[in-house]
């Protein structure tokens, strides 16, 4: 029967037997940033809830999010969001069957990295007038 040897079969993928490539790092980073952004969303939703609850509570939530630690978390979130968005576009191209050639995947990965740095700079520059 088909399920006779189910428990002993080797499981794929054997990631550890491959030489680490930077595209592999990008791949797992997509997942890590996705999970991390869930936590960022909790913070942002809390901020909205506080805004709906009233002035006093909002001042508290707002002060927490714009404190040094809060600010660092938000900057990190902005980078993670930018990375996830850019790499998400890369994934949509792959879903359409395009960009699988090694050289293309390598280059699109570099574009994702560049975008993940440039987009936060653009947001901070345009929306906040920082720099």
């Amino acid at each position, binding site marked *: 029967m088909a399920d006779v040897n189910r428990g002993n079969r080797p499981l794929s993928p054997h990631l550890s037997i491959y030489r680490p490539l930077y595209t592999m790092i990008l791949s797992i980073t997509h997942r890590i940033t*996705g999970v991390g952004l869930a936590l960022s969303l*909790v913070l942002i*939703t809390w901020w*909205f809830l506080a*805004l709906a609850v009233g002035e006093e509570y909002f001042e508290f939530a*707002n002060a927490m999010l714009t404190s040094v630690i809060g600010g660092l978390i938000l900057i990190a979130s902005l980078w993670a*969001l930018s990375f996830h*968005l850019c790499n998400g576009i890369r994934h*949509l191209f792959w879903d359409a069957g395009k960009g699988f050639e090694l050289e293309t995947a390598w280059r699109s990965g570099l574009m994702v990295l560049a975008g993940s740095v440039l987009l936060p700079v653009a*947001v901070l520059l345009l929306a906040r007038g920082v720099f």
Partner: protein
Amino acid sequence: MGYRTDRQRVEGLGSAKDGTTDWWQMRISAVALLVLVPLFVFPLARGLGADYDAVRAIYQNPFNAIVAILFFITILAHLRHGLQEVIMDYVPGKAMLTFALLTNTMLTTLIGVIGVFSVAKIAFGG
């Protein structure tokens, strides 16, 4: 193995039969978020750290309020499917997996509802 025929053993097994729905939902929400995320992030980046009345004014603007509500609805679907994929890859055992999936559905829905409710309350001036 009992006396069941091969066909009976196979029936009802196999795929959960809605894998393509999940996959497709993920892509639809991803494309929608490509538009919604920038529209959501810019007013948010202006609002964070601003004073109470200024931030309320941002989200009493109908455009910003509608974008924010669309964002929360769409991110709810995207986040739930995304986390579900991660949970199914890493959480071992049927009991643990079921618990994790239930928790995921409830918490992501809670976040989405809190977000939509908050923006609506602000937008309607309550």
